[in-house]
């Protein structure tokens, strides 16, 4: 990833403005010659984080591979909203097989390219969090362990949204889903469960693991580009808010994603060969309430007397992440120092 020492932020927002950047520094998405891998006209909900993330990620992968890309998709929202027969929003070679086998199918595609000597053709597999951390986990672990030449992208919206917002192994503690209702003495999802997939990926010692959110699309594109420079198994975990499942306003998708990062609940980092090599530091440290309170999946924590105990537990998770990844340790200040010297 190319790290710029100076960032230009638009007034009143956290977003890096393309208009203030040199052409070379602008997003791939802002290029009129972008590939439009996931074209308009699909049936994603208004404010869908996954559609946004997939569009940026795949256009970046297409740029990185000079259009020599094959995408494999697990069953899920992204698959369903993009390909209602006989229409398709995919302008790239695209295969959907099953819910739990996208990593293995991608391994097969990569093997076919290798055996045919088409080494310039690269493979991206994509799935939601259910297809990644739950039903697809066995296959994904196998693909990682063999170090197959596949970039696997998880668009994490923290539950089974396609089937109507049921809990997945990536659903955060306290969150209401259709199978962890906000009722009883411990409303919402239980604590102490949930898979930290990026760290599980790192434990496989694969060449590249990174996380990103749709709040920083420059960063997402850069990480895809970086991943495509490498061979072997690579993993990119993208936080993609789901207005339907999270109960957030569809205009707040970017804001919610940004708050996930700024609170420390979703650490944004890169790891090479199992070691964290860079983190995106928190610009304005924010309490988790600001993130939780704009999502109705956490409404039970704030209505009536509220559940400050549960909120405190969630804050503790954020604080642990901040400490574990050094999210406020001055790396941003270092950026500024570099800019000033």
């Amino acid at each position, binding site marked *: 990833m190319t790290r710029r020492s100076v960032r230009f932020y638009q007034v009143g927002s956290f977003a890096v403005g393309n208009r203030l950047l040199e052409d070379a520094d602008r997003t791939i998405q802002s290029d009129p010659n972008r590939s439009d891998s996931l074209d308009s006209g699909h049936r994603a909900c208004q404010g869908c984080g996954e559609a946004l993330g997939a569009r940026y990620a795949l256009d970046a992968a297409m740029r990185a591979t000079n259009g020599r890309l094959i995408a494999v998709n697990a069953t899920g929202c992204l698959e369903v909203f993009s390909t*209602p027969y*006989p229409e398709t929003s995919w302008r790239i*070679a695209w295969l959907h097989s099953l819910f739990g086998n996208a990593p*293995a199918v991608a391994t*097969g*595609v990569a093997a*076919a390219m290798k055996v045919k000597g088409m080494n310039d053709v690269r493979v991206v597999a994509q799935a939601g969090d259910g297809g990644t951390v739950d039903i697809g986990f066995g296959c994904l672990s196998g693909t990682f362990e063999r170090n197959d030449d596949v970039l696997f992208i998880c668009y994490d919206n923290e539950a089974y949204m396609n089937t109507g917002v049921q809990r997945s192994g990536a659903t955060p503690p306290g969150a209401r889903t259709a199978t962890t209702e906000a009722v009883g003495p411990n409303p919402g999802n239980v604590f102490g469960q949930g898979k930290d997939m990026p760290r599980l990926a790192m434990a496989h010692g694969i060449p590249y693991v990174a996380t990103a959110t749709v709040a920083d699309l420059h960063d997402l594109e850069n990480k895809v580009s970086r991943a495509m420079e490498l061979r072997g198994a690579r993993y990119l975990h993208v936080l993609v808010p789901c207005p339907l499942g999270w109960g957030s306003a569809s205009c707040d998708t970017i804001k919610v994603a940004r708050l996930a990062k700024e609170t420390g609940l979703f650490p944004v980092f890169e790891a090479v060969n199992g070691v964290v090599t860079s983190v995106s530091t928190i610009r304005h440290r924010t309490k988790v309430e600001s993130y939780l309170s704009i999502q109705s999946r956490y409404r039970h924590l704030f209505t009536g007397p509220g559940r400050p105990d549960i909120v405190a537990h969630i804050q503790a998770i954020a604080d642990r992440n901040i400490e574990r990844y050094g999210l406020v340790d001055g790396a941003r200040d270092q950026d500024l120092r570099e800019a000033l010297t």
Partner: protein
Amino acid sequence: MLQQIEGSRAVAETVARCRPEVVCAYPISPQTHIIEAIGAMVKAGELTPCEFINVESEFAAMSVSIGASAAGARAYTATASQGLLFMMEAVYNAAGLGLPIVMTLANRAIGAPINIWNDHSDAMAARDAGWIQLFAETNQEAADLHVLAFRLAEELSVPVMVCMDGFILTHAVEGIDVPEQGDVDAFLPRYEPRQVLDPAHPISIGAMVGPEAFTEVRYLSHLRQLDALELIPALAAKFALAFGRPSGGLVHSYRTDDATTVVVAMGSVLGTIKDAVDQRRALGDRVGVVGITTFRPFPFEEVRRALSGAHRVVVIEKAFSVGYGGVLAADVASATHDMSLTLHSVVAGLGGRAITQHSIESILDDAAAARLPSVTFLDLDRDIVNSERARIGERRRSGPSAENVLSDLGSVASRIG
């Protein structure tokens, strides 16, 4: 060239000569020797170009095959029993997508109770998956069927499962003429996919299909299988010309010309049945055998023709639908529903129990004497069954039946016979 080799080895060498480009493997008895041999050939550089992928499950094995095949590579894998069940979602998916994957099924029983020996329960579980299912009678045929399978699969864009009896064939050493490389190359053209993932010509494969078109897409799969009924005999004829021996085809009749009683079966048990028939013929009995080589698509017309002279048909099969009876017997009954014959379903050889010539002859005796019920379990130990039934009747917590039966038998080791 005739060589004295193991069936698995012959299949592995034949598959290698079919030049698969992606082979994925997850070990399960009794398929292991096949994939071990192919793995060694790839590692030694004898089979190239080929990617041999050690996957983490059968579900992945079929999924990797799906990806490889959709990307235009000739894909092969092998499995058995629980492995087939574990990959079943992907097995259906491969057929639904119309991907010409070839898979060897080293037929083995399905648990519980866990059992590694041969029967056809696994193949029957995949009966409706949309794969063409071919059954080998001998190891020679098992080897040859793979050459035919790749040709058939790729011509129709349908996956093909070559079923060979676990251990009885896979682990038997006998004289086998492994198809020569030059002959295979002449018989099996390069794989030209009907649909392929190509960045230069991007298409979407695996779209969601609703009620407006699902029936038509599924019916097209059915038509491709019906096409196979035409293609399989044609390919078998070509194969016989090219390789100088018959292999494949839909059904094979043995001494059925004037037979009034005909036994129908699939797989290696046909050899034993033929011996029994020879014995009976020597005594003047008018008995014959029809072997089913192609189980899916089911060759209705050929079965009817083969059984046209029979008054009595005995279907001996190594699987059954629990609560129903023989699976193959049901298909034969359906094919012959308007013919005046008596049909018997004999379930035999479950979990590796030997089907002896003696048992087959006693079945023929019972059939001739009109003592054979419509559904029979061959060599069933009624005392053991009754003892466990009594135990179940006596007390609520009667325990696990499998363990009780073994305990009654006083058996701690496997008894095949």
